[in-house]
């Protein structure tokens, strides 16, 4: 009786390990590859016979030098971080009250309005960027990070509002009622009671928005043309792909450096992120 059980459990564990292993290989292999390629000499790289996993010529720091010295990579990282933080702040400022209002304060027209806001998320940047570039030029912020800061919330706010709406709906109203009986206004109850217990939802919004910002390409490419104002997403391909010559080593380094540290940070918050999504989207 006990043996077949034990066998089944062992088999289950092997299958589980195999599945996890296969997926991890799929997602992480390109990054492992990027790490190796970063230190490879171009001559080593462009030899079909060479084993790509070994350093057939000694590893080099030249690609990193090109990345950090010959391009404005550090400046671009800083630009991206700056835009990310400000846009996340704006998103929170707009989406938190809006989500709460939709969850609690709007009665009949709340649901359709909420869906309407969510649907604006469907309007693709590839459609909007031409008229938006005229708007940006009109406001005089073209070629500066402020054009991005102005426009990026357009794809973070709709989704985050919808998410927070669900999140707030799941919080029992008794907590706010109790606070209001204690003398707080509704707005005060929102600020002092609801927000502190919504950390998971806020975290979800922060991580989600920051990711969307760092990934964005079309707007950054259209609105900005000065090298020092680029974000990483646009600057790296523009400078390290010259015509049809790709500086592979430096490109791989750029991607690796821009991704791994942030992934490590996110990993600390993934549980909270999942919790936020659970409450916000599962209703």
């Amino acid at each position, binding site marked *: 009786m006990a043996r077949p059980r034990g066998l089944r459990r062992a088999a289950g564990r092997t299958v*589980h*390990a195999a*599945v*996890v292993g296969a*997926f*991890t290989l799929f*997602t*992480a292999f*390109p*990054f492992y*590859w990027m790490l190796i390629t970063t230190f490879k000499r171009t001559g080593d*790289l*462009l030899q*079909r016979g060479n084993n*790509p996993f070994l350093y057939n010529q000694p590893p080099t720091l030249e690609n990193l030098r090109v990345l950090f010295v010959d391009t404005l990579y550090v400046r671009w990282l800083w630009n991206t971080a700056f835009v990310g933080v400000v846009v996340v702040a704006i998103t929170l*400022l*707009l*989406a938190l*009250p*809006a989500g709460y*209002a939709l969850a*609690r*304060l*709007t009665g009949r027209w709340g649901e359709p*309005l909420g869906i309407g*806001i969510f*649907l604006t998320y*469907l309007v*693709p*940047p*590839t*459609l*909007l960027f*031409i*008229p938006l570039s005229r708007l940006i030029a009109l406001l005089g912020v073209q070629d500066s990070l402020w054009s991005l800061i102005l426009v990026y*919330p357009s794809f973070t*706010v709709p989704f985050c509002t919808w998410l927070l709406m669900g999140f707030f709906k799941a919080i029992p109203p008794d907590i706010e009622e109790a606070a209001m009986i204690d003398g707080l*206004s509704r707005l005060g109850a929102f600020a002092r009671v609801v927000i502190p217990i919504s950390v998971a939802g806020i975290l979800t919004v922060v991580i989600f928005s920051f990711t969307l910002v*760092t990934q964005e*390409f*079309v707007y950054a490419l259209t609105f900005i043309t000065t090298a020092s104002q680029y974000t990483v997403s646009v600057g790296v*391909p523009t400078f390290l792909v010259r015509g049809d010559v790709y500086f*592979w080593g430096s*490109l*791989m380094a*750029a*991607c690796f450096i*821009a*991704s791994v540290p942030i*992934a490590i940070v*996110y*990993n600390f918050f*993934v549980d909270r*992120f*999942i*919790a936020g*999504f*659970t409450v916000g989207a*599962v*209703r």
Partner: protein
Amino acid sequence: MSDHTSAAHAPAKPRVRWLSSFIDRPRRLGVVMIAPAVIYIALVVGVPFFLALYYSLTDITAGSRSLHFVGLKNFAAIIETFKFRTALRNTFVFAVGSQILVIVLATALALALMKDFRGKWFVRLLILLPWVAPMSLGSIGWLWILDSIYSVINWTLQAAGLISPDNWPMYLGKPYLAMASVIGVHVWRLLPLATVILLAGLTSIPKDIHDAAEVDGAGFWRHLFQITLPLVRPIMLVAMLFGLVFAFTDMIVIFVLTRGGPYDTTQVLSTLAFFTGIQGGDLAEGAAIAVFLFPMLLAVAVVFLRIARRTEVV
């Protein structure tokens, strides 16, 4: 009311109190709280959207300083072209194909991640990576991995004896392979987020339901298909909707990897709009192609939201 002001501020109190009690009515407060978001969206999404719609009805070009209204001529013209119809078909193939793969794979991965095991923190880190990477850079990384001469995948396959040196598959150069490659890279990039969303759904299933099923003696597959999956269906639909929107509108992966592929076999609406409007200079036609995306997305969203609401698990 909110009374934390001291007597020294007495002169300002009545006015502040009046204001805060004025907006504190639920209806009014609701309007005040939601107004900034709505105004912002109306200005930054609404206005440009209608402008783009207007452009698609004119003859504007990249170099023109004036435009004339031409009605539906752009739309009529592009629908007839072979290029547009190919792009339309490819868009569906790309979006639906990648989404089905993402959902199936993400479900499998989410189920596997439900269990605690050694090294889970590290595994999660590795699985998060594709989502965190700026997509233009990630695509360039894949461009190198799928290179026709130096692909590491081909080298490894050859070293394992599975292919011969003259037989290296051209992942980005042959029609069906190219579509498979761009779908593959797109799946790679969406997998982490979909997995996380599904994990959210899975963790919200109360444990008693699983226990009850165990007691009843349900096997693994029956448990999965008849209990677990139906319960995560709403959130799965959200993930699919999100992913479909992404797949329909994204152009980076295809632009970087194939520029529209071996003779238009991976050309999708968003890349065609870019090539026609920006590189080709005919902004009006580019706008018309891009505008085509929106009703499709709207239809998809409406369908999904309707299904999601009907299968809501209370």
